């Protein structure tokens, strides 16, 4: 059981001396939003103090103070997480990286960029484009920080072609729990040099160290792109189409899945029915949105023609082209707005972000749907069909919070069990935080979960880094854990 100390006026003074008056916030001045991320349903916990760090040196000095005094430190970026990852369960200090938002240097010879962790994903993407480069990972939440993306190994829509955040991290500067600064990785593409602590750090959700600088790999920006929306009568035939796209060697950049329910929610919400609900006088059950990139229009036309051919064989209702800038804008605005559209007509939501083998998607969705019906909970879902990553949302509608949570617990327990049965993973890209810890434990088993705990102890023996997250069970007995506010 971890025991922590309070931030006394003396400790506060030391912290204030590191960052200065303006970037230190005592208990009464902490932004109340720091008590939660995008999922306040998992509980709100206020820290005792917060600091806005600006440099590696400051973070190091802060960690020295906190480790010497056993003060828990929870690192926070933009607070856009979905699993309570940046929520200070044990109080203590929130270390916010939002002011570490500088893009430091481009290396045009090695196609890399060095930046601070608080740079927002959308800002990196836009800035890279001005250099003719693209940052390939494209998680849905564009206002997340890149540091947060690394900490959760965020994925996104383009993972089908380019992989996930992990694949683009070349090097990290990390401050350890005791304040030491280490460098992991190098700006090279290959390495075969001992245990990869770099890859251990990626996806560790601020439990092993604090990332203060990173070098990310970039690629030349594709010259042109086009998307096709392929509508089907039902979910099964739609999902069966996904491997065929890959097998046809079409190398899509993304394959997004949407069923009739989410399309209807989106149309009602945006008022712009860009995704058709009926095609050729038939109801659309589900569609995939396939994106291709290439070096010229002819190349893309050829890919679309081949896509059209296999779509016909797969009994698709049609193939619709998204080629003009206005249509691209509308389609991606609607696609990016799915979560918002879901949130718009319900009081509360809870979500899961499982990954299952692509061919198991229909089985999983059918199971989820029946769980929703059994328990009187409306379910909405969409996802990255190309990699089996599904975002599933339980909507409370008008249910009271306690009753909603009770029913959702039943659904989640059964759904994660089903996911395990189908050989799936607990989280594709939202990670574990504290909300999904029990399901991680069930999913990986005691041996693996125990090893994770041992590794945590090596890096952070006093357990001051983001306590109660991923594999740290020390707060699960509620001792040491704050009362939610």
């Amino acid at each position, binding site marked *: 059981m971890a025991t922590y100390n309070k931030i006394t006026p003396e400790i506060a003074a030391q912290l204030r001396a590191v960052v200065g008056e303006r970037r230190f916030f005592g208990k009464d001045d902490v932004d109340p939003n720091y008590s939660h991320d995008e999922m306040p349903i998992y509980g709100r916990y206020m820290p005792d103090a917060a600091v806005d760090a600006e440099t590696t040196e400051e973070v190091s000095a802060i960690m020295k103070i906190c480790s010497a005094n056993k003060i828990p430190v929870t690192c926070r970026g933009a607070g856009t997480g979905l699993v309570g990852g940046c929520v200070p369960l044990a109080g203590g200090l929130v270390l916010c990286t939002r002011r570490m938002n500088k893009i430091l240097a481009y290396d045009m010879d090695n196609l890399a960029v060095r930046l601070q962790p608080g740079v927002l994903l959308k800002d990196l993407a836009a800035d890279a484009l001005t250099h003719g480069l693209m940052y390939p990972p494209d998680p849905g939440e564009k206002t997340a920080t890149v540091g947060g993306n690394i900490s959760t190994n965020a994925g996104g829509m383009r993972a089908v072609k380019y992989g996930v955040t992990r694949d683009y991290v070349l090097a990290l500067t990390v401050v350890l729990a005791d304040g030491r600064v280490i460098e992991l990785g190098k700006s090279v593409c290959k390495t075969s040099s001992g245990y990869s602590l770099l890859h251990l750090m990626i996806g560790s959700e601020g439990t092993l160290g604090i990332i203060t600088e990173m070098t990310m790999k970039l690629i030349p920006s594709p010259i042109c792109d086009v998307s096709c929306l392929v509508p089907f009568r039902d979910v099964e035939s739609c999902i069966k189409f996904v491997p065929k796209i890959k097998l046809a060697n079409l190398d899509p950049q993304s394959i997004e899945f949407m069923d009739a329910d989410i399309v209807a929610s989106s149309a009602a919400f945006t008022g712009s029915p860009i995704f*058709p609900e009926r095609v050729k006088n038939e109801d659309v059950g589900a569609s995939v949105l396939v994106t291709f990139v290439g070096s010229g229009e002819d190349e893309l036309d050829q890919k679309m023609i081949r896509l059209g051919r296999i779509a016909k064989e797969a009994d698709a209702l049609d193939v619709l082209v998204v080629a003009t800038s206005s249509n691209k804008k509308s389609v991606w605005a609607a696609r990016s707005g799915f979560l918002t559209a879901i949130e718009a007509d319900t009081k509360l939501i809870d979500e899961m972000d499982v990954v299952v083998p692509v061919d198991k998607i229909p089985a999983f969705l059918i199971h989820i749907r029946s769980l929703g019906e059994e328990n009187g909970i409306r379910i909405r879902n969409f996802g990255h069909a190309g990699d089996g990553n599904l975002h599933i949302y339980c909507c409370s509608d008008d249910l009271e919070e306690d009753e909603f949570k009770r029913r959702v617990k039943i659904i989640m327990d059964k759904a994660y069990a089903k996911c395990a049965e189908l050989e799936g993973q607990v989280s594709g890209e939202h990670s574990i935080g504290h909300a999904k810890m029990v399901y991680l434990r069930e999913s990986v088993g005691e041996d693996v979960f125990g090893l994770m705990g041992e590794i945590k102890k090596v890096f952070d023996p006093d357990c001051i880094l983001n306590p109660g997250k991923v594999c740290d069970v020390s707060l699960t007995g509620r001792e040491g854990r704050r009362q939610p506010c």
Partner: protein
Amino acid sequence: MLKILVCVKQIPDVDLVKMDPETGNLIRTGVPTLTNPLDLNALEAAVQVKERLGGRITLITMGPPTAESTLRECLAVGGDEAVLISGRPFGGADTLSTSYAIVKAADMKGKFDLIFCGKESLDGATGQMASQLAERFNASQISCCCGIEEVKDGKIRAARTLETGIELVEATLPCLITVEKDKFCGRLPSLDNYLAAKKAPITVFTENDIDGLDLQKIGVPGSGTIVPKIYPPELPEPGQIIRTGSVRTDVARLMELLAGKAAL
């Protein structure tokens, strides 16, 4: 069979047009173009009428040769043929001379029962073209249309969104219609149509191809208005910017400053 004309326009992406601070001219080179979004709503309305009642849709635009891509985009969505009016003498036209050129060129394709056009273009934004085309086509006119009930016996019944409610109207054909964008959201083209549109023939009319065209009525000579001067907007003196270091204290300071005012 209904003969339907849809008037469209290719415009520069106004968000990306800049003004040369030295010369005061607009920099349009290299600025991406797009089809005026409201014209696509008009096209959608036309396609819906065609799907319901049958008909043939002719697309028409006036502009440089690049405007061809706008016509192809519209062909893919539901046009049957396309006309591009292009040539230097047409350049610099305002709505008075543009409407003249379009109607003269459209006459070459026969008489139309229904004419659709966008409510306004995002670049010029005068909103005058619809009325002026209607006048020159000697057509009745339904603006702000939010629904088309029926077209028969030389008449159209439709609904309009007015400032205070929905008006139902009956008008004689030919009729020119502009639509409410929310009611006629554009559709995505089917792949077959998209590919076919790339190869479709496009009729190009120069000033020499249009019967009875009065060269004094097109381009700059035919325009009623000119723009003798453009200049950057004059900015007033900046207001007082509150900078105290944090949002909390900024807002506190603002509240202090406002305390004396009646407004809050």
